[in-house]
């Protein structure tokens, strides 16, 4: 809430406090900011932004610029990943795109979409040892916000693997025989951690690991109010050169955005449907909410009386 209002007398919301001699006109609907991060009811000096809000904005912009340039702490994330009960036997693979640094990354998206030579080699070697491949590869990619990856990856994956049944390669054949299509366990490739990567690098990884499907977790471009937003991109049979039409996206995964359980539910739905139809992208629409939406299809809001 607006701290500057702490000492002002209680007002009826319908009686805005305004003195025509004051340069700044406050907005009585400022209190709506308890319900949204949007910068509503900022008030005005004439028709312009009051000084306080101008300076608040500039600080937030400065912080967002800084977030773009903070690197991902790979060792910390990797350490936490291996200790999860769903973690594959093989340790996470630490990979790097062809963009050598942040400056190259920002100006050359083509470099960010492909693995560098040693990373590609690392995956190719892995494939030699595991030629049968996997059902699912997970690529954790820094993107434009390492903060988003650092903060949201583990809780999201933990929520996902409460829903998604996993199997080890050893018993995959057995599982295939015994399980129904929807419940069939997934074999999981070693988790891939990628520096200076973009969404499409998941296709390179998917192909090289001989995985049927790739789920990319990537730091989205930081916003002023959300420097920590994680994006999820699903591609069935990812191949280098695939366009966005082949992908399904779940965006804004973070504590103050789409909650982990909700995101996991959507991802589980899309993964299951992608496997059932052997495809992803625009032909695979997200209907995971349909039942909820039909049951609770209200449009009620305070602007329109019931």
């Amino acid at each position: 809430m607006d701290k500057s209002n702490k000492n002002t007398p209680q007002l009826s919301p319908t009686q805005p406090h305004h003195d025509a001699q004051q340069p700044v006109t406050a907005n009585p609907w400022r209190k709506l900011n308890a319900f949204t991060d949007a910068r509503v009811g900022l008030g005005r000096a004439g028709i312009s932004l009051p000084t306080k809000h101008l300076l608040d904005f500039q600080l937030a912009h400065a912080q967002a610029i800084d977030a773009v340039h903070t690197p991902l702490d790979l060792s910390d994330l990797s350490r936490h990943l291996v200790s999860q009960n769903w973690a594959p036997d093989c340790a996470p693979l630490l990979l790097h795109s062809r963009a050598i640094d942040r400056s190259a990354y920002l100006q050359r998206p083509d470099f960010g979409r492909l693995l560098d030579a040693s990373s590609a080699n690392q995956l190719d070697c892995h494939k030699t040892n595991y030629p049968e491949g996997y059902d699912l590869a997970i690529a954790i990619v820094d993107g434009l916000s390492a903060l988003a990856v650092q903060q949201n990856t583990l809780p999201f994956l933990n929520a996902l693997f409460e829903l998604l049944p996993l199997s080890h390669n050893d018993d995959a054949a057995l599982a295939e025989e015994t399980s129904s299509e929807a419940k069939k366990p997934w074999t999981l490739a070693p988790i891939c951690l990628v520096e200076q990567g973009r969404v499409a690098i998941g296709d390179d990884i998917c192909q090289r690991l001989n995985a049927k499907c790739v789920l990319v977790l990537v730091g989205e471009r930081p916003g002023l109010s959300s420097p920590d937003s994680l994006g999820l991109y699903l591609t069935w049979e990812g191949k280098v050169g695939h366009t966005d039409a082949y992908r399904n996206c779940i965006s804004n995964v973070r504590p103050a955005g789409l909650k982990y359980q909700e995101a996991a539910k959507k991802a589980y739905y899309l993964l299951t449907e992608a496997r059932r139809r052997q495809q992803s992208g625009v032909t695979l629409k997200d209907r995971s909410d349909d039942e909820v939406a039909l049951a609770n299809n209200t449009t009620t809001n305070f602007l329109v009386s019931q």
Partner: protein
Amino acid sequence: MNHPNSAFQFRHTVGERTFGFTNLADLMAKATPARSGDRLAGVAAHTAEERAIAQMTLADVPLSLFLEELLVPYEEDEITRLIIDDHDKLAFAPVSHLTVGGFRDWLLSDLATTSALESIRAGITPEMAAAVSKIMRNQDLILVAKKCQIKSAFRNTIGLPGHLSTRLQPNHPTDDLTGIAASMLDGLLYANGDAVIGINPATDNVQQASRLIRMMDEVIQHYEIPTQSCVLTHVTNTIECIDQGAPVDLVFQSIGGTQATNDSFGFNLNTLAEAQDAALSLQRGTVGNNVMYFETGQGSALSANAHHGLDQQTCEARAYAVARKFDPLLVNTVVGFIGPEYLYDGKEITRAGLEDHFCGKLLGLPMGCDVCYTNHAEADQNDMDNLLTLLGVAGCTFIMGIPGSDDIMLNYQTTSFHDALYARRVLGLKPAPEFDAWLAKMEIAKNNEQFTLNHQLPDAFQQSLKRMIGGQ
């Protein structure tokens, strides 16, 4: 450079040096004012001198060559076919003898009145518009765009001279209805929202889109707002929404300038035609039947690896051929959203915004601009102030309006409700007349002529606000 005897289609000699350009696409790309996306594509001029020479060479190219030498093959691309098959030779006749340089002179001349510009419109192809823009300064782009008047209508009239409309963009990261309603209230009370109330949904989902469409429809009906709503979901989702009976005003789609770009977006021209028919069948417009809302932006074709070796501004102009086929209410170039790999800084964003607005207007589109930047671009609010002011002078059809410039869903900065009021006040620009009258009736505006707002909360909104924050 310095290849006197090779396969260059265009040559230009300065002193003892000869500059060569392999074909029209190469010449167009090298003549383009510098920007990061063309460097990324490897099509930009290598030196400042080469760019200036390319501009001189391009100025000597006859406009008619663009009808013969197609930059994207006719057989491979339905947008090329659209451009060529729909070209109007009669409309082209008055300027058909001109070169690109001569066309610039004609556009700036007193011969090119508003009605003359309208009469040649169907004879101008996107490539001609792109070519001439490359040899125009910013003030040329502004001056000619201002002479082009493009009107469109649905529940109000957009694009009249002396008017600037705003899209109220109440996005919320989880599509929360209270959050969306809060931003809508804020925007309406800051006199924004006449172009459209348009939500980018957090997730592409038919049921959610349908719900948001109904929510906005109820608000528009309740307050009798002369405006229209749109959920910016994929065109195939909107078609499903219409099939399910949702009250759809406008159909949205992001469009690009090559068939391969649009393939990557998951639609083609037939999809758009089907969607337009579906929206028209609902007959929801009261003063007009422009039912389409398109968004574009330089760099989308390259981003989809579908640019055919063209520069990004030429690809962008070709998207306008798609737009004008479907008589849109609004076309919005989302100029700074794509990021610094395509438009590096405030200077490149500004130039691109003015080019897009000019090309759109010349081709007959109700062209607006999302004056915006991302946090990884070299740009800030001052750059946006500059572009907003320039576009206001140029007669831009509409801009975005959002609380405090901060889009909490798409994570970028665009123009605020306050910014729109600034442009209206310094440039004397009014919202759509039907909406302007509504602002007066609702007592949101205190004085429409002086662009002042009511100091009191208007009666009609008092009860609504009480419902939300009254119990304290």
